[in-house]
């Protein structure tokens, strides 16, 4: 299973979201999830199973199947919740 955070240049903010997704995954004990980040231009729909973007980029990811839209990309609580929901939805085993 692979999660991917995206932003316009794929450098700073998507990287931060990637690190925060990893932290969220560690918290709930989800294993075997790979996390990566990329820019909108080079990431394709097959590069990951779930894509995470801020709501300002909502219109740029219409070609992707499974997208999680974040209201605020710096809100760790929101991210924790949405990562957990995603894991439950996809049946990823959690430790607790």
């Amino acid at each position, binding site marked *: 299973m692979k999660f991917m955070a995206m*932003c*316009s240049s794929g*450098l*700073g903010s998507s990287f*931060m979201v990637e690190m925060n997704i990893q932290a969220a995954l560690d918290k709930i004990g989800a294993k075997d999830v790979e996390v990566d980040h990329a820019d909108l231009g080079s990431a394709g729909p097959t590069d990951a199973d779930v894509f995470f973007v*801020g709501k*300002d980029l909502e219109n740029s990811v219409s070609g992707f199947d499974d997208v999680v839209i974040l209201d605020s990309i*710096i809100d760790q609580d929101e991210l924790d919740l949405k990562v957990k929901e995603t894991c439950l939805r996809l049946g990823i085993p959690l430790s607790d």
Partner: protein
Amino acid sequence: MNSTLHVFVQIFSEPSILVALIALVGLLLQRKPGADIMKGTVKTFVGFLVLSAGAAVVVAALDPFGDMFSEVFGVQGIVPNNEAIVGPVLQEYGTAAALIFFFGMVVNVILARITRFKYIYLSGHVALYQSAMIAVILIVAGFSTWEAILWGSIAEAIITTVSPAVVQPFMRQVTGKDNVALGHTGGFGIALSGLVARLTKGDPENSTEKLKVPKSLGFVRDSTVVVALSMGIIFIVVALFAGPSYVQDNISDGQNYILWAVMSAGQFAAGVFIILAGVRVILAEIVPAFKGISEKLVPDAKPALDVPITFTFAPNAVMVGFLSSLVAGLIGMGVLGMLGTAVIIPGIVAHFMTGGASGVIGNAVGGRRGAVLGAFANGILITLVPLLLLPLLGDIGNANATFGDSDYGVIGLYLGWLGIGGKAFIIVGILVALLALFGTSFGIGRAAKKREARDHAAEGSATSDSSETRSSNIADSSDSAS
């Protein structure tokens, strides 16, 4: 013996190996498994070589463009694109730049630990670009590589500590919290936007978010698309001015001039794309280590993050700010053209990133008026800064590309202009800045203590007599004013 030493020097002056070693240290400090350490180190090594390859592609696209531009307009045309300039710079000054970047991060953590400026600068890409610029300026000013690394690291740490601090009062207005800061080399321009918005007294209630912005503008969020399109327009316009015979005879080797312009713009965008890929690989191993270590050493640290963290707060303000900043850049280009100086061609990515954030900040402080005027001020600033930096960058100043954001101007012009007086001036200048940082931190600490004491006093007397509290508060504030 001497030959062994020689080999060591060769290894350490090879930036790709140096950066890989930095990643190795980071991975070891995180106590990663052996396989991860090897993977990360090798990827970083290759990542740097990818970056160098991208630099060659960018240079190959920009060189003929520069010739053509000066032939047609009689002045030098400069593209302020951080990726486009940083590639060639790292090829020449890579060792100093990589070590300034690394030790700059270390000193940043130390400053966050011992001062009241608790900002940990996590935007590794712009920190790397800024370190590269500092390396160039110091070495052009006569520093040896090792002197440049020593003083450059301190200078880099000062600017990465101060820049988030100047934006933070406005960031609090945007986010409503004080736990995240903005870490970007556009920081001073974005803070200027907030200041302009405050001075022009727009109404924050009259927000840009009540506007309807056409969705068709969304493509500017994809940086590869926007770089290719904007450079395409620029190349085609200049090729049209130059005319088919000039381009086909002197530059394109017979290829149709419009086709040549389109291909060159595409090549420029491809080069930037490759450089970004390289930077991404390098940072992937280094930034998490830096984050992990700083979290342990500075418990109350605020991470300073890249500009798009502001974008979700006011997506319309991003577009308003981008367009306003770009208009300022276009007007600036016209004025510079008339003055006959080198011409700074508006860097679309810089106007989108820093103009967008300026729009968000301006909107939070002063609504639509704040977003428009604040971002316009940013646009003027990022047109002037690259122009003023050019003479301080030595041969790099003739490279047809340059550093684009406002902080490059703040630190670059400070060091560069001091450098006119010689090395000693620069060293004194860095020490003065460091002292000023500690002094301000101390001042903030005292003010905070005073406020705390006053709040305590107010709380204590509030139960007995509220009017007395008010008068004692007035007395307090007149005390501090005198």
